């Protein structure tokens, strides 16, 4: 399960504020539920998320177990230069996923 939906406007004008929206397919298992045998189901959540725009940090977040499955993240940035937006997140299994979106900025 490495499905992600990312929505970013690809062509921007300098100074424009734009929204970055993403939906990540992830179970976000809270670690507080038990299976049918009474065993605790191990916690498995995305615990860290960061987003950079041309290597400049836009957002860094620590996520907690109360967030539902398939989390939806939305935040804003201001268009400066043509370049790439890189989103990286890590889950409790240590899986790191990186997604990249190229944006074109005109004057």
């Amino acid at each position, binding site marked *: 399960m490495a*499905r992600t939906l990312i929505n970013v406007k690809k062509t921007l004008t300098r100074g424009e504020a734009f929204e970055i*929206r993403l939906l990540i397919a992830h179970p976000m298992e809270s670690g507080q539920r038990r299976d049918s045998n009474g065993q605790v189901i191990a916690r498995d959540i995305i615990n860290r998320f960061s987003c950079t725009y041309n290597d400049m940090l836009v957002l860094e977040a620590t996520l907690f177990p109360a967030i539902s499955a*398939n989390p939806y993240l939305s935040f804003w940035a201001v268009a400066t230069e043509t370049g790439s937006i890189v989103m990286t997140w890590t889950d409790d299994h240590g899986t790191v996923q990186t997604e990249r979106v190229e944006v074109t900025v005109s004057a």
Partner: protein
Amino acid sequence: MIWLLLLLLVSPAQAQPRSGYLDAGPDSRAMQDDDTANPAFLWVEQGKVLWGSLGCGGCHGDVATMRGVAARYPKYDAVLGRPVSLARRIATHRAVPDSEDMLALLAVIGLQSRGLPLAIDISGPARPSYEAGKALFHRRQGQLNLACANCHDDLAGRHLGGAVIPEGHPNGYPIYRLEWQALGSLERRLRQCVVGVRAVPWADGSRELADLEFFLGARAAGLVVETPAVRP
């Protein structure tokens, strides 16, 4: 006189079916309205991949050619002598690896018909199946001794606990249900409802389930396909 006419227009229970969308609450509606916020689109993306990898496109071409198909299902199959669901129809063409994959295919095929009115054909030889499904809908069952109609016809719009009772139309399936935190089928929803009245749910692929789904499809005539819908 006009007052009386208005009363007549408003009062009949099933004059125009009411989509569960209207009872879902503003947050769920907002999620459904925005394809980038609707988590069901994670399955839609997977469905597009499967459409290619399972070779559906070999015969059908682009998935966009499936427009209108989901609105006609469940469809009466004269050879089998029973209604078949879209999932069952897909399964006769291709071995779909698992239920998540099937949901993904149903989502992407259903999406092509979004906005089209449901068009279930209950004429001719299909009529007995419709009648059988209707009888099941009105049959009391389970320890609570409730029929589907007791709540979804008679008490629709009232409350069960804190939740509004919807009319129970199948126009948005597969749905992303917030309670499930996942995409789920109509069969899953029916199973939950039947277990809720403490009856024994019908087996997957059973004749009863096929007839009931067929009746539900016809009962929702006038509504448009909303697949993939978001419900609480």
